[in-house]
């Protein structure tokens, strides 16, 4: 309740609400559009043709098919592995470590590393896919520089290790975001607090673990939520690299969703898949929300 006693806020409530108005209008529009996407999951809406105009309600049929037809459950498992290793372990941890290390580094090294990770983030998905498939192909960089000189036969990485390769490619592509967010977050930790900890004899590790991490906890939770959502729904890179194959090895839910809504043209079923994805990430986010709470 402390905040409400702040006179510069209570005295200007009208202005504050007025400031929120544009956002409220736009959020209203967003809710309107997403309500459509929700509603579509109970219809047989198609992408093209007659059923794109004259669709009808089909009740829970689309949701039943998630479990009675091949595809959804298999893809869910692939997605869980992909998200856990590429987003949570890869991007988030690596991004934080980089942000924490680079904060004290001279600017040249920092600039070089930043350019490197930023290039991945900014390269169009489709080009990143070509780049990674060229890197991992039988005549690619890894085979030419490492595998063949060591006397092994060239390895067809995408054929044999498809999921690990797309996972690494996604770490490469997406770490920049976590790095940026954590850098900005660490920036907001006041120097005095860190200095005080140093005077008290804390090691660099302790300073990060006991002082900085707790302060930026909300940012960590937010970042977990964001990258989980993005990685769950991220599809251009995998789709361009392997198309979900070989077979179904890299068919994540996002690829499955695309195949059902666009290739097959069943927007109704596609919407049901995305609503199910929403529910799954919704449950996950309850765990992340706990991070937000102060441990006191």
């Amino acid at each position, binding site marked *: 309740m402390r905040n409400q006693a702040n006179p510069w806020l209570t005295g200007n409530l009208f202005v504050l609400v007025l400031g929120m108005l544009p956002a409220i209008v736009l959020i209203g529009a967003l809710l309107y559009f997403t309500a459509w*996407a929700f509603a579509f999951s109970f219809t047989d809406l198609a992408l093209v043709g007659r059923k794109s105009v004259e669709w009808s309600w089909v009740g829970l049929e689309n949701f039943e098919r998630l479990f009675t037809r091949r595809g959804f459950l298999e893809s869910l498992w692939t997605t869980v592995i992909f998200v856990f290793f590429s987003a949570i372990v890869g991007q988030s941890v690596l991004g934080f470590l980089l942000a924490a290390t680079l904060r004290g580094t001279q600017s040249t090294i920092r600039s070089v590393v930043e350019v490197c990770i930023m290039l991945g983030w900014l390269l169009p*998905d489709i080009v990143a896919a070509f780049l990674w498939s060229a890197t991992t192909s039988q005549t690619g*960089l890894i085979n030419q520089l490492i595998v063949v000189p060591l006397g092994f036969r060239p390895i067809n990485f995408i054929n044999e290790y498809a999921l690990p390769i797309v996972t690494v490619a996604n770490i490469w592509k997406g770490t920049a975001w976590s790095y940026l967010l954590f850098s900005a977050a660490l920036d907001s930790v006041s120097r005095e607090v860190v200095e005080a900890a140093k005077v008290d004899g804390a090691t660099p590790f302790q300073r990060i673990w006991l002082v900085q991490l707790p302060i930026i906890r909300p940012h960590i939770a937010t970042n977990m939520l964001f990258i989980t959502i993005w990685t769950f729904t991220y599809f251009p890179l995998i789709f361009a690299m392997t198309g979900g194959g070989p077979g179904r090895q890299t068919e994540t839910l996002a690829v499955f969703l695309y195949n059902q809504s666009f290739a097959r043209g069943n*927007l109704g079923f596609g919407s049901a898949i995305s609503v199910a994805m929403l529910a799954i990430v919704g449950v996950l986010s309850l765990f992340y929300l706990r991070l937000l709470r102060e441990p006191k």
Partner: protein
Amino acid sequence: MDNTGPSRLTAIALAFMAVIWVSPFSWLILNAFNPLSTGQLEIPKAFGFDNFGLAVSGNAGRQFINSLIIAAGTATLSVVVGISAAYPLSRLRIPGRNALLWTLVLLRMLPSAGVLVPLYFAAQRSGLLNQLGVIIALTILNLPFTLLLLKNFFDTVPIELEEAAYVEGASLLQIVTKIVLPMSRAGIAVVWFFSFTGAWNEFLLPLIFARVQDAFPMSVGLYAAFGQQGAINYGFLTAFSILYAAPAIGVYFLLRRNMNTGFAGVGVKG
């Protein structure tokens, strides 16, 4: 100053990582400067700027301007709308505001495919099948992320500073512009850049919203590399994507330089 500076070992480790990180780009560079590029990783027999000439020969100049308008427009609109809503959200005790923001962010999981059709019809009815329409649509789609991020950054600004300013007679506007915004400068920059890159890479919305081909941004222009029956012009593709990514990286460094002179290093009285 912070003298926890890294040991030589950290520097070497970082440099090593940078090398690994950047090594896949060899493919991009080798193909871009190879006039006879085939998409294979090989040392070019010839070296030249033909591909870059090809990449800028078409509509690239116009497309670059369009990309810039869409990306900067989206980023600025997102940040302005976001700030004016996130500050009250951060400071006023609105019940369930966190749950609300998280729910909004979660809703963004619903694919734009489902949203696309109603969005398109709405834009058509309001006469917004143009770049302004793309900017507004992208702002709408960004807003949940923007709001949550900005609120988090405002939360970390100590309210005591605002109290002190109020006691000294500052108005709300002064408090926000003189204290809150400068203190969250890094965060605002990140959010702006996030919206900027998102819009810079957006392909589908500009493609379907544009009524004339002069309105296409670079993300659409890139696909000129793809012909029929899977024939791909790799020289064009690689050269174009270098030209395409470079401005966004430039924007990042402009932004970062301005960020560094700001809050970092300024002590905060607790």
